């Protein structure tokens, strides 16, 4: 029988590196991550090399990506803050997008399907936004947990709830991306597995083709989800930053 649908998520070292008790091996996940960064950089540099007034196809792509992310950032943040955080949000968006898209290439690896990756990104956003909130507002930042006009007696109940709600942000941010990616790729493998099973029965060659058709449709869906999840990650990052800047 074919391998398990979860087999694809196993991390495999390419260059084993052991530093004391730590396993710092260069894995296939890291390789795809590097590929994503290299591809993004190459796309940006190559795309804007000619700086044509009427963009060609290669220039159009970076411009579209730029305008897309700039739109998200400027919708949520004001001028100075938007300029300050655009590079960060853009990098984050491209890293997640590349992870999702490169994962769809056969024999590749989806690094966003590992919660440690998405959690690291989400925690970075969390600490960045919290730190920036404190930097901007000082101790006044903590009034974020106290909705305006709240009777003081209610604060005993509302403040812990708001704190839990605030702390749950990185968790829901990372789980959303991770769950979408893992579920999608597992589904692709499960349908591919159906194909293998069906080939074993009579008329197998005909029947075995049916899951392939489903998989083709699923692959289209997965491509859409890859974009949507990168978009959601970027827009939620902006919303979190917005909430710590505006407080209420």
């Amino acid at each position, binding site marked *: 029988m074919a391998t398990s649908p979860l087999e694809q998520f196993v991390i495999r070292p390419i260059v084993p590196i052991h530093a004391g008790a730590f396993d710092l091996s260069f894995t296939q996940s890291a390789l795809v991550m590097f590929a994503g960064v290299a591809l993004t950089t190459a796309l940006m540099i190559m795309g804007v090399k000619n700086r044509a*007034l*009427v963009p060609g196809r290669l220039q159009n792509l970076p411009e579209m990506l730029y305008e*897309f992310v700039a*739109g998200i950032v*400027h*919708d949520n943040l004001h001028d100075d803050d938007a300029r300050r955080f655009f590079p960060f949000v853009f990098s984050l968006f491209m890293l997640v997008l590349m992870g999702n898209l490169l994962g769809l290439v056969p024999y590749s690896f989806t690094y966003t399907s590992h919660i440690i990756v998405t959690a690291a990104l989400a925690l970075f956003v969390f600490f960045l936004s919290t730190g920036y909130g404190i930097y901007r507002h000082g101790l006044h930042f903590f009034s*974020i*947990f*106290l*909705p*305006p*006009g709240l009777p003081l007696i209610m604060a005993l*109940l509302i403040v*812990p*709830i*708001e704190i*839990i*709600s*605030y*702390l*749950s*942000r990185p*968790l*829901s941010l990372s*789980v*959303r991306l991770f*769950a*979408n990616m893992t579920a999608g790729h597992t589904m692709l493998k499960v349908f591919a597995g159906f194909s293998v099973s069906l080939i074993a029965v009579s008329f197998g060659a005909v029947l075995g083709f049916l899951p392939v058709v489903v998989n083709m449709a699923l692959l289209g869906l997965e491509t*859409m*989800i890859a*974009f*949507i999840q990168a*978009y*959601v990650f970027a827009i*939620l990052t902006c*919303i*979190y930053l*917005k*909430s710590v800047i505006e*407080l*209420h």
Partner: protein
Amino acid sequence: MNLTPEELGRKIKEAQDRQGQAPGAPIQTGESTPAGRAMRAGVDLAAAILVGGFLGYWLDKWLHTKPLFMILLFFMGFAAGFLNIYRSQTGQDFKIGMGTLDKTEPDNEKKE
């Protein structure tokens, strides 16, 4: 057809007006589909309950008050989860505080 940049800009604007799409308008995506919102609601609720539960567990360990805070914060996490859902479904996202419900300041940012 040779156009100056101004003419090109005007033509693009006309085309955008025809399609009823303002430049820089927010792009509608899957989060606004019912399934996307439902998915999001589930994650939002579960995340807050988990955070509440773990926070309580950790406080109990620290203060040796097992199981007081875990029970208390579990239910508060439940409340926070519903607050998360309420906010994400009404388009306020994770805005802390009551945001758009505060009638004193008109909020025109209700896009999603």
